[in-house]
């Protein structure tokens, strides 16, 4: 067996914390060849990023400790190299891009400086860097690179920032590019562009690409081989297609089964019922910027209406305007016949009981200093007519059990729960008010795929039991496909298409809807290959 470009052998990394030692990765081995794309697939906490961080010496030690193993780059163990030798590898031979390009770019320096710095740090003469930086920016598709070189990270869009990160990483034509969740924070259409760019650049340079992701769709799109990690260990290795079609390990099977977008679609509800929410002509302007433009929609009792669109499409503004967290510029929103937009503060206070919201990030939306009991029972403090004080405890127990948590955990604080559990707590909090309509703003986007499936099953159950209506705001189309009765597609503050879920997914009428569906990735590499060809054709036709 000849030398691999990169060979990780029996790597184990521990983190020593005040709560004891965490074995982040245990006895992990994998390798990467030139020109190959290897994906490390895992959910949060699986240790998928740790081995990549170890390669680039990015693990803080302490608290981290590499307890065993070797990392061979071109046959030499980087763990035995001096700090200075390792620094010279970083950015020069091995480069890395990250999930959230806004926080990973230094906000106070121009992008030109930050790209040129990679070169000067590895001995390139300062005089040559500007021209080279402009070339790189042009190559990754930044328009107008001659002037944009002096702009700052906040002046670019999310997709452009990731392109800039890529330009920075590729400045010295590294042998290996590590991409840690490179498209997770991006819209689907932008994700498709970035993945295409990475593939093209790999073909040009012949570099090895190590892709760390939680998304089987991304694996299907770009990976040759895949390593599946769970709880710090590799559970399965194989070709992308092989692992998807014949998973061997139970964990992989479970992961693939949890992928949304494969199940039956819901039938539309009968149109006889009186709508619970009826919005017409709603608009919201911020100065000259139109965030919502003449939006009209209805929600029936017991119905799930999904609002999909890319960032900046106005879907969150719509939710905030309905809840009067933002004041509408015009239009009306009738909730059970009363206009929410023109309601006085008193009436609004009463009606807020009936309309509740579940936010994207339960870590931020739950007060970290309040116990779960206090968080849920606060509903009764604010609306004392719901329940007399002596029944609070019993009701909180009941609510926790309803969302699948243990009643004895009610005096714990939010940080003692996992992300999925926290979102259940947030749901229990809304249920305490006995609402009729729950607005879910990207309520499961921050959760792992298997947890997403559980939370959606819970919401469906609650809808069946309590007759709740959901306004489900999401960017993830496969999720929406499985969960919604009706879908509303938004772009630039306008509704471009709406209809029953089957119509939107199987027979979309609008070009924008079609491009959104085409850009979303299938977890099946074979299906994805077909889709990719179709998408490229669409793009070529558009040009």
């Amino acid at each position, binding site marked *: 067996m000849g030398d691999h470009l990169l060979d990780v052998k029996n790597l184990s990394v521990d983190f020593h914390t005040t709560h004891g030692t965490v074995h982040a990765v245990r006895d992990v081995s994998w390798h990467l060849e030139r020109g190959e794309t290897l994906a490390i697939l895992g959910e949060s906490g699986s240790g998928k990023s740790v081995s990549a961080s170890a390669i*680039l*010496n*990015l693990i803080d030690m302490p608290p981290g400790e590499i307890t065993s193993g070797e990392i061979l780059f071109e046959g030499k163990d980087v763990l035995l190299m001096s700090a200075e030798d390792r*620094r*010279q*590898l*970083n*950015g*020069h031979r091995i*480069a*890395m891009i*990250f999930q*959230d390009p806004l*926080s*990973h*770019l*230094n*906000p*106070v*320096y*121009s992008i030109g400086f930050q790209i040129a*710095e*990679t070169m000067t*740090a*590895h001995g390139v003469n300062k005089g040559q860097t500007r021209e080279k930086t402009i070339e790189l920016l042009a190559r990754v598709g930044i328009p107008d690179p001659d002037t944009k070189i002096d702009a*700052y990270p*906040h002046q670019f869009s999310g997709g452009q920032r990731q392109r800039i*990160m890529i330009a*920075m990483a590729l400045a010295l034509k590294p042998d290996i590019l590590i991409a840690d969740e490179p498209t997770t924070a991006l819209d689907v259409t932008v994700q498709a562009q970035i993945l295409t760019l990475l593939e093209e650049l790999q073909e040009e340079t012949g570099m090895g690409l190590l892709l760390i992701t939680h998304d089987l769709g991304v694996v299907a799109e770009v990976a040759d081989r895949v390593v599946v990690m769970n709880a710090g260990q590799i559970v399965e290795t194989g070709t992308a297609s092989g692992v998807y079609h014949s998973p061997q390990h139970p964990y992989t099977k479970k992961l693939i089964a949890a992928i949304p977008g494969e199940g039956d679609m819901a039938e539309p509800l009968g149109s006889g019922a009186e709508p619970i929410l009826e919005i017409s002509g709603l608009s919201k302007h911020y100065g000259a910027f139109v965030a919502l433009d003449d939006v009209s929609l209805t929600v029936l009792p017991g119905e799930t209406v999904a609002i999909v669109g890319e960032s900046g499409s106005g879907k969150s503004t719509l939710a905030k305007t309905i809840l009067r967290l933002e004041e509408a510029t015009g239009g009306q929103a009738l909730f059970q016949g009363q206009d929410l937009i023109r309601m006085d503060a008193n009436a609004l206070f009463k009606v807020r009981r009936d309309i509740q919201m579940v936010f994207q990030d339960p870590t931020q939306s739950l007060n970290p200093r309040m116990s779960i009991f206090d968080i849920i029972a606060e509903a009764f403090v604010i609306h004392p007519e719901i329940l007399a004080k002596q029944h609070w405890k019993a009701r909180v127990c009941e609510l926790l059990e309803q969302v699948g948590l243990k009643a004895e955990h009610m005096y714990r604080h939010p940080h003692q729960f996992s992300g999925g559990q926290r979102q259940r707590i947030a749901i229990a909090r809304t249920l305490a008010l006995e609402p009729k309509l729950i607005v879910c703003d990207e309520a499961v986007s921050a959760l792992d795929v298997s947890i997403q499936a559980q939370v959606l099953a819970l919401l469906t159950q609650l809808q069946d039991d309590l007759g709740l209506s959901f306004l489900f705001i999401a960017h993830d189309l496969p999720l929406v496909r499985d969960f919604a009765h009706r879908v509303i597609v938004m772009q630039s503050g306008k509704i471009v298409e709406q209809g029953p879920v089957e119509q939107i997914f199987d027979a979309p009428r609008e070009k924008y809807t079609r491009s959104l569906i085409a850009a979303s990735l299938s977890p099946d590499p074979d299906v994805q290959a077909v889709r990719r060809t179709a998408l490229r054709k669409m793009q070529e036709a558009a040009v």
Partner: protein
Amino acid sequence: MLNFLGKRAVASAISLVGLVLLVFFLSRLTGDPTGLYLPLDASEEARNQFREIHGLNDPLIVQFFSYMADLIRFDFGDSIRRSEPAIDVVMRGFAWTLQLTFVTMSLVVVFAVIFGSLAAFNVGGVFDRIATFFSLIGASAPDFWIAIVAIVIFSVKLGWFPTSGTGTVWHWVMPVSVLFIRPFGLILQIVRGAMITALGSAYVKTARAKGIKNRPIIFVHALRNALLPVITVIGDQAAALLNGAVVIESIFGFPGVGKLMIDSILQRDFTVVMAAIMVTAMAIFVMNLLIDILYSILDPRIRY
């Protein structure tokens, strides 16, 4: 930017008028200066004449408007005690205070930033522990007590430095050192905290992945971000010194605006008190403006 400066100038002008009102009437409440300046056995006629000369016989409101009328022509009036323009007296003292503040704060910033950054680079290390220990002592030490002890030890016992005055470089050592201690301790702590945050940030991880050396990571990538909160505190501390380090200037007999102010209050030299307050208020306004400008230079996201 110009629009912003204009708005700030108007806002400060309004504050200044409020300040003049407050100080003018409050200082009159301390009593009539006549008794302090004329001998005890001065005749009522002489007293009246003194009051006439200094306009103290007019109703308070008339005194105020005539003062404001002069002020618009930048005439702060004459010092009652020294019979020269009050503004000249104040500017002399202010020049000293400005130098003292500049020297002290320059030293504070240089040392606090270097030591704070290095402490943050290796949290919990020996250097961090030493720096934290001394900065905590510095931030909490009572400076008037240190000043007196320093005079006892270094001037009286050892005879190294003069006790008061400004004649030579040696005269400056003790006031600067004593004034240095507290802002140094405070700012070091803030630099350390801000640098720990900055060094743990995602963009520093990127810099490491790019193979940037440690020194530019600390002093180029992290420091410029960490300086933003630090600058606010530097401004605050410098303002405190500009206001006149009243106690320290008095202890070391340093002829700055702080000592001048306390002396003038005791002597009911109203014109000088007023002029001193106006000048320091202006100085603080200018300094805050400089800080805002510095902010927008350091952080391209801030544009006025």
